[in-house]
């Protein structure tokens, strides 16, 4: 018995068939999803998603905050941004944060300010998670 795992962002979609287990960074703590998991919606915070196939880690993705839609056969994660951790250079995230700060300096609309601040917060958290991962 296996699980289909899909991760979607506005810019990329990746699907893995035949996954044994997925661990997700839930807002209330880490969460393991295996085949026949109860149907649920989970709030995700920035962190690392690990995909297991036969006890081995198949892939690791670092993600922005989002939502996971879990059914017994499928786990769909919808996030604004994600990166495969082995391909990620923390400098990219640092540059993103710098760019958001520059954008924030030139913004005078309250809504845009709020969105940029949320982006900075989420990217900083992603950077923190990435740094912790690379330390290990």
């Amino acid at each position, binding site marked *: 018995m296996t699980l289909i795992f*899909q991760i*979607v*962002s*506005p*810019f*990329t*979609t990746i699907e893995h068939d035949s996954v044994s287990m997925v661990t997700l960074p*839930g*807002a*209330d703590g880490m*969460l393991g999803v295996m085949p026949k998991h*109860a*149907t*649920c*919606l*989970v*709030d995700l915070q920035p962190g690392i998603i690990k995909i297991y196939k036969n006890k081995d880690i198949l892939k690791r993705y670092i993600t922005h905050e*989002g*939502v996971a*839609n879990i*059914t017994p056969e499928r786990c*769909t*994660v*919808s996030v*604004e941004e994600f990166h495969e951790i082995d391909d990620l250079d923390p400098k990219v995230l640092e540059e993103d944060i710098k760019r958001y700060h520059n954008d924030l300096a030139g913004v005078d*609309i309250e*809504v*845009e300010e*709020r*969105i940029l601040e949320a982006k900075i917060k989420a990217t900083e958290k992603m950077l923190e998670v990435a740094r912790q991962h690379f330390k290990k």
Partner: protein
Amino acid sequence: MANLKDLRKRIQVVKSTKKITSAMKLVATSYLKKAEGRYHSGLSYRNGFQGVVDRLCRNLKAIDTEKENELIVGRKGDKCLLILLSADRGLCAGFNGNIGRYASKRIQVLQEAGKKVHVLCIGKKAAGALKPNHKQLVEKIISMPTDRHYHDVSILVEKVIKDFYEEKFDTCEVIYNQFKSILACLPRCEPFIPVQPSKESLQNKNQDLYDMEPMDDEFVNKITTKYLVAHLYAAVVDSQVSEQSSRMMAMDSASRNAEDLIGKMELKYNRTRQSIITSELIEIISGAEAL
């Protein structure tokens, strides 16, 4: 009979026009490929959230909320906001005209039902394609740069939600050109606020009850906002891919038309030149015979 110099000039003009339309066709093809990538990802992202929202709408009563979420359950009222998506530029056949006419029809239907309609245009061209008496309903025209669609859509949706809670409108619909194939795109109107479950979800009545972590207002609001952003983003990229395919087809037919025109004019030019030569020869021969 047109003189040779004029014909030569006209042939040159049509040839330069053909060069421009061919170049524009190549540019539109390249944009179309990029837009298709964004379109598929945008659609998957929206479908991901649609599944979540379908479940959310079904299980709303089980969620511990302080008050009903008006973005999902809706609100009674007669003010309707239409978000109209079009292109910023022309030269894309009937793309802008079709959406303008479709929007005018929708406005008429809503007005006949006693609704007060306001229009928000994304793209500069749609407002011009509306019927003259509907142009005054346009509140704002926004232009959206290609490279930062998602960011701009997030900001726009936040503003729309803010206006909804300030009771500036009670329902909202999105009108855009839906991409069917490179040859065809159809105008489409979709309800935006209140959030609607998909048709499949309404037909399938045997869905499990959902657990939610956490089960509170904040999470429901987060999902609803993200779904609305995903919905509008999918519509924007859908409209953009339709625009590029329309422009590509329009430029292709313009190039072929220019080719036909050049062929016809060259034939005319050669006939005229030949007739001038013939008449000159006749003059020389008749002159020689007279001597």
